[in-house]
């Protein structure tokens, strides 16, 4: 029971703490976090987008593969999906199916390039980013795709039920694929011992391509949500202008890694994304400018990383303050900050 309490506390302390702090600050300022009727929808949509992006980033980064092309995959897949739905018809089901399938194929192609060229995944993803941004630009001739006149295409991103369903389905799907399947076992063995796993017969190339495909499919869903909620795709984004979305996933990824020590990292990504979305609602409630929001988010990232990288020191200091000499149980996982390799120190 004590163990359960420890795990529950470790899992929930960040999201509950974040909600408490943000709610208190908003209340002190005389504002409300859920002031408008759309607040819950905004929270669910932001959580879905952030969680999917975080998962897409983390599943490759956990294997030391840094991927700059996440935003480009979301852009290219949604451009393809919307173009097909507008020109061929079929409404939202066609747009959704084509977007997610395109995302998976673009992801698989990215993985195929990586395993075929055998170059650094970071470098490979730079080329892929240029390629997919160029593809989206070429499809539309550099213009935007607007489909606000098609109500069936924009209803998905404006539905609380749909966003909640996306979160639940994606969480269960990613958990099943990576934690409850043969593929997931191979994936984890490659993370912990690449050379040993390959020697033991794990098919590294196939595993990498499938991981990229899942990452691409997740970004396809992100592209679908963004396109559907805005009714617009800015397909003229070139020169690496799509990489920004990746940076929103770092803090939830580290939070997810921390929570994963006590429960499961996939659940951690959801709770990390939820925490970030609550902070986003707080920014709106407190009427902070975008510059102030960027600054605070960056400081939160730095402070959380400092905590993760110096956890042992903080623990020693805390024990000293308490005057006890009992050695607390250390989490078995590696430090979240260290466990995600970037291919660079």
């Amino acid at each position, binding site marked *: 029971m004590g163990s359960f309490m420890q795990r529950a506390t470790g899992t929930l302390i960040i999201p509950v703490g974040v909600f408490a702090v943000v709610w208190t600050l908003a209340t002190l300022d005389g504002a409300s976090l859920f002031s408008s009727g759309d607040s819950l929808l905004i929270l669910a949509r932001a959580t879905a987008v952030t969680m999917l992006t975080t998962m897409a980033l983390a599943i490759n980064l956990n*294997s*030391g*593969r840094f991927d*700059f092309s996440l935003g480009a995959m979301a852009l290219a897949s949604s451009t393809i999906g919307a173009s097909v739905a507008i020109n061929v018809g079929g409404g939202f089901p066609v747009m959704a199916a084509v977007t997610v399938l395109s995302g998976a194929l673009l992801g698989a192609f990215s993985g195929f*390039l*990586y395993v075929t*060229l*055998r*170059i*650094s*995944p*970071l*470098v*490979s993803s*730079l*080329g*892929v*980013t*240029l*390629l997919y*941004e*160029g*593809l*989206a*630009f*070429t*499809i*539309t*001739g*550099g213009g935007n795709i607007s489909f606000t006149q098609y109500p069936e295409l924009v209803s998905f991103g404006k539905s609380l039920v749909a966003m909640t369903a996306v979160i639940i389905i994606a969480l269960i799907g990613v958990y099943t694929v990576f934690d409850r399947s043969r593929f997931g076992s191979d994936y984890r063995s490659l993370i912990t011992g*690449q*050379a040993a796993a*390959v020697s033991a017969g794990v098919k*590294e*190339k196939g595993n*990498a391509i499938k991981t990229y495909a899942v990452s691409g499919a997740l970004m396809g869903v992100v592209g679908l949500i963004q396109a559907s909620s805005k009714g617009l795709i800015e397909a003229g984004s*070139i*020169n*690496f*202008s799509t990489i920004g979305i990746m*940076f929103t996933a*770092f803090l939830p990824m580290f939070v997810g890694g921390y929570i994963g020590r006590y429960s499961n990292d996939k659940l951690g990504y959801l709770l990390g994304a939820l925490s970030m979305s609550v902070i986003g609602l707080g920014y709106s409630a407190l009427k902070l400018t*975008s*510059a*102030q929001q*960027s*600054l605070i988010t*960056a*400081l939160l*990232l*730095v402070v959380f*990383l*400092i905590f993760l*990288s110096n956890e042992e020191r903080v623990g020693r200091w805390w024990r000293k303050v308490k005057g006890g000499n009992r050695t607390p149980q250390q989490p078995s996982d590696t430090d979240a*900050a260290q466990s995600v*390799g*970037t*291919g*660079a*120190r």
Partner: protein
Amino acid sequence: MHDLNPTDVNKETDVTVDTRDDAKTTATSTTKAETTTKADAKAASKARRGKLFADLAPLIGLAVLAIAFVLVGTSSGTNMGYAVETLINQSVIIIIIATGAIFIFAMGSFDISLGASTLVAAMVAGLVHNATGSLWLMLGAAILTAVATSLISATLAAVFNLPVFVTTVAMLSVLGAVAAALVQTTGGAQIRIDRAFSREYDTLAVKLIVAAVFLALCVFLFNYTRLGRVEKLVGGNPMTAKLTGVSMKLTAIAAFGIAGLGVGLGAFLTVLRTPTLTVTSASDIGMNILVAMVFGGMVISGGPRSRIYAAIIGGISMALLNQTMSIMLQGMAGGAGIAQMVRAVLFLAVVWLAASGFRTKVLPR
């Protein structure tokens, strides 16, 4: 392909032991050993050729692109003098910043905030110029701001044991916010310096002098001083570097300081070239620096294969490619998208060739 590896050495050792048994075995084993030695020598020679080709790949790419640029330019009746000037204008800032950044990348570190740092330094320089009217104070402000920014990242990472890359991700957001705040100080959406003043100094001579002085300093530091050797040692094997008494923190701070100097000079030239700065100015510089370095043969994991000339080769190659594609796709709808896809394919091809002599059995990470 047969590479030299510990297994081969063991095989040869086993053969040596067998030869003590009897003369027949000795003869057979000696033949086997000779065959193995010949095969190994052949494999080693092949590997050497592969590595030489890999080292030359970026230069071959540059030569091919230069020929394509001249052929396409002359056949389409382009004013080549003007095209070359545009080429220098496009590449010089990237080359300067990327050359400084090689000191960071050689250590196996990664700074993604260089573009944002360039923007903030350029904005501060612009504000200082507007307040004082001095060129030198403007230059000093650009350098000081960029070096300070760079050192903050290095110090944060060194003092708190943070992964450098993630620290620079946070700096990217911080600098974006600082840029937005700086713009707000003018009460508008931009920082503008006197266009006549900027035109006076936005000349090829100024750019080439700044680039030549900084590149000479970097080449000297990287190739002929202990600092350069230590940077490569840290990138190649950080544990060995630590055990040989190298101060990782000081080395990192020195690398970030030099990169900051490059960013400062790049920011100075940016504000002369683009006298009206907004929060989106220089937004693509950060990633283009990375592309230029890799295109020029820089190894992203750093170490002994790091080359200070990579940024120069890569920067010029990218500018040549951009110019050639601009001429070829002039007026075509979606031409910029096609140009970017061609750029991606060539980038991947050159990187693939440059890595051809250094493949491992497992996938690179």
